[in-house]
């Protein structure tokens, strides 16, 4: 018996297309960031503040997709999954983008080290802090903050690099032992993942308002990572197939599973968001409700309502049936909606800390930052994808995945 899987006659490499995407997205990204920076430097203090917040928001948006991908890859190895092998490389490419994207966190760390308190209000001299924040300086101080954030990014980079490198190595050598090796590492990776993602969410987003706290916050951020990741998977797979790649290896059965996961995580996100809100609303303790208060007034209430309707109700009802999950155009529509809503979710988490009660206002700087960071993200993905197969061609369970059917 031969262990070699007969791959269908399929296009498995990005080839020239990746180069073009890299150049176009990269150029757009850099140009947009330069524009945004120029506008900021020409503008007043308000503009400089907005730049930082919207930079952070868009960076978190791209990172969250890759963080979701990292979790997905770890879970596939941990559960020895068969169905997902054919799509795992796409997730691995998303995951590998954590390395280049980690460079973009450096400006924020440098600003924090230089004593800038635009983003993080706790980063002021001790005597300027109120009593509550003074009590937290053991945790919230520039040096410790930078060390922690650096640790999260280094851990992600190491774990992502490990899984990506081993998977590529298997493409070359066909060594099956690598699968066992990745499986062994996947278990401790979950622990590292849980701790780093939780505290990254706490440090980078929750401490923007250092008075507010919620034990659920890390889980909330994680839920958003997963919805955005599965939405991105649907869009990326659709894009690749529309361009003649992997047309026969990835079937509607795989989309169906994406759809189930997306539905599941829409539900999970809603569950977490509801629980967090309901408990704070019900107990009505001022030190907790303040955070929601600024998100319920001055126009922010519409964004809050948008989240309820379009991050929960509409996609929930939309994806509840097999009929939408097994039709690519309908599934793609849900993916686009949820990706936009995840962006708005992060906008809702981060930007009110900038505007402090003022109405939401989406301006040119927001737009340029979005295009800039998204452009760089897409360019990184294209660069990574240009050097590898789009499917783990030597994975011992590839055959199972190619023949996979829901029933």
């Amino acid at each position, binding site marked *: 018996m031969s262990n070699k899987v007969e791959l269908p006659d399929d296009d498995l490499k990005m080839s020239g297309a990746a180069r073009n995407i890299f150049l176009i997205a990269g150029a757009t990204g850099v140009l947009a960031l330069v524009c945004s920076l120029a506008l900021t430097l020409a503008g007043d203090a308000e503009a400089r503040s907005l730049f930082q917040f919207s930079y952070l928001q868009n960076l978190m948006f791209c990172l969250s997709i890759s963080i979701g991908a990292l979790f997905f890859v770890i879970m596939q190895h941990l559960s020895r999954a068969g169905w997902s092998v054919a799509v795992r490389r796409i997730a691995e490419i998303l995951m590998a983008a954590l390395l280049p994207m980690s460079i973009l966190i450096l400006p924020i760390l440098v600003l924090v080290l230089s004593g800038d308190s635009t983003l993080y209000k706790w980063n002021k001299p001790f005597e300027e802090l109120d009593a509550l924040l003074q009590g937290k300086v053991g945790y919230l101080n520039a040096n410790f903050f930078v060390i922690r954030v650096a640790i999260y990014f280094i851990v992600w980079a190491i774990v992502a690099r490990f899984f990506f490198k081993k998977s590529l190595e298997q493409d070359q050598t066909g060594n099956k032992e690598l699968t066992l090796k990745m499986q062994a590492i996947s278990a401790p990776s979950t622990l590292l993942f849980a701790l780093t993602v939780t505290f990254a969410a706490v440090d980078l987003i929750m401490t923007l308002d250092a008075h507010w706290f919620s034990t659920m916050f890390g889980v909330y951020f994680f839920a958003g990572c997963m919805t955005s990741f599965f939405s991105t998977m649907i869009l990326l797979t659709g894009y690749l197939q529309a361009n003649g790649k992997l047309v026969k290896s990835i079937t509607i059965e795989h989309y169906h599973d994406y759809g189930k996961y997306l539905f599941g995580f829409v539900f999970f996100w809603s*569950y977490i968001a509801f629980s967090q809100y309901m*408990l704070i609303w019900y107990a009505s303790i001022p030190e907790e409700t303040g955070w929601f208060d600024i998100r319920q007034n001055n126009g922010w209430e519409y964004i809050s309502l948008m989240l309820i309707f379009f991050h929960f109700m509409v996609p929930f009802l939309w994806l509840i049936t097999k009929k939408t999950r097994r039709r690519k155009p309908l599934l793609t529509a849900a993916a686009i909606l949820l990706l936009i809503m995840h962006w708005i979710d992060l906008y809702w988490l981060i930007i009110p800390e900038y505007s402090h009660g003022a109405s939401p206002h989406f301006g040119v700087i927001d737009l340029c930052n979005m295009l800039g960071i998204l452009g760089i993200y897409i360019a990184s993905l294209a660069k990574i994808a240009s050097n590898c197969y789009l499917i783990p061609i030597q994975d011992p369970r590839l055959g199972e995945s190619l023949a996979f059917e829901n029933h």
Partner: protein
Amino acid sequence: MSKAVPEVIDTTQERLDERMPLVLGNNTYGSITDIVSHVAERREVPIAWYVAFGISASVMAMFFALIGYLIMTGTGVWGNQNPVFWGWPIVNFVFWVGIGHAGTLISAILFLFRQNWRTSINRFAEAMTIFAVVCAATFPGIHVGRMWGAYWLFPYPNTMDLWPNFRSPLLWDVFAVGTYALTSLMFWYMGLIPDLATFRDRAKGKIRQIAYGIFSLGWTGSARQWHRYEVAYMLMAALAAPLVLSVHTIVSFDFAVSQLPGWHTTIFPPYFVAGAIFSGFAMVVTLMVPARQWFGLKDIVTMRHLENMNKIILVTGSMVGYAYAMEFFIAWYGGNGYESFAFVNRMFGPYWWAYWIMVSCNVISPQLFWFKRMRTSIPLMFIVCIFVNVGMWFERFVITVTSLSRDFLPASWGYFAPTWTDLGMLIGSFGLFFTLFLLFCRFLPVVAMAEVKSVMPRKHSH
């Protein structure tokens, strides 16, 4: 010529070129039926069953006697006393609801995740779920004070113009637990129908024939019936999956909607759910280890099944550890003096022993399952799972009692001490649980035969 499957293969070892069989030995569809049916059919019931049943039924009788004593005397027979008005009854309630989480997780969520190994253990776990929910529902039922009016909890038009207060999380519990009990029961019963029909067809005596005949609802096993059955199973699984989350979420709301330090924290809902699955699986392993031995089910419930359950225990146990850690971190980070006091008080206050029992049983002991040798050792997994059961009871004790006994006003602080009635009722509820369980083992198919056959290789089927 087909090769015979070797008698002993270690399915806990992973092979990359093929999936491991879920059922071991040279079993055929027929032999699976024989093995499982034998448990309920054998004429000479082992003496051990009678002994076990005698003990459980006596303990259950004590439970009912104590409930009678409670009704005649009043809730003063418990240790519940100002300021700890929620004592052991609520601790026991949460404990038992938690135990009742593994069944639905296995039958619904693992089904949706295509985890075929669940077929060997789902019947067993679902039965356990229902009996645990029976025990759980008893406690709030007798805790309401005038329990003869407990049905007022249900909203129904009445001449007294009484209407439940829907803003109370305790009322949400009535619906959450009620829905859960009903759905679990229906799910369990529906799964039983094909197997009950098998029992009916094999029955020797008239009474058995009629009894199994009634409950198997005229099942013939036709293709049309199987088609309907599978559609219904899928729908039930999809309905039951959110229930796995909702029940313990609502139970956690009982605590978390309050303003009490140690109770009010946003991570409670998923933390309680993880804890419930954790304790539920520990109970399944605790019961499955002896059961597979006594009933000769080792080919069906293999070491791999036990190992998988132990892995779930490790995962959910670590989630519980994560929640403990987050609570502590935020208790400090939040800068609320009452909150941080509550947590320091848990660790070093008058109930420090309960807290450290909880941490060592729930967080430390399952960490042994990181090692394959540990999670495939029968004695060790049995001990760890007992520890987990104990630890999860103490978790609820720590949450309920430590926070209540030290509220905002030092003048009203108190120390909760249980009475002998409290202790008797906790033990008694185990009597109820085991009595139901032993009856289940004696009269019903302990393994879902039809489902196990569906995941066996077809090699032997013709």
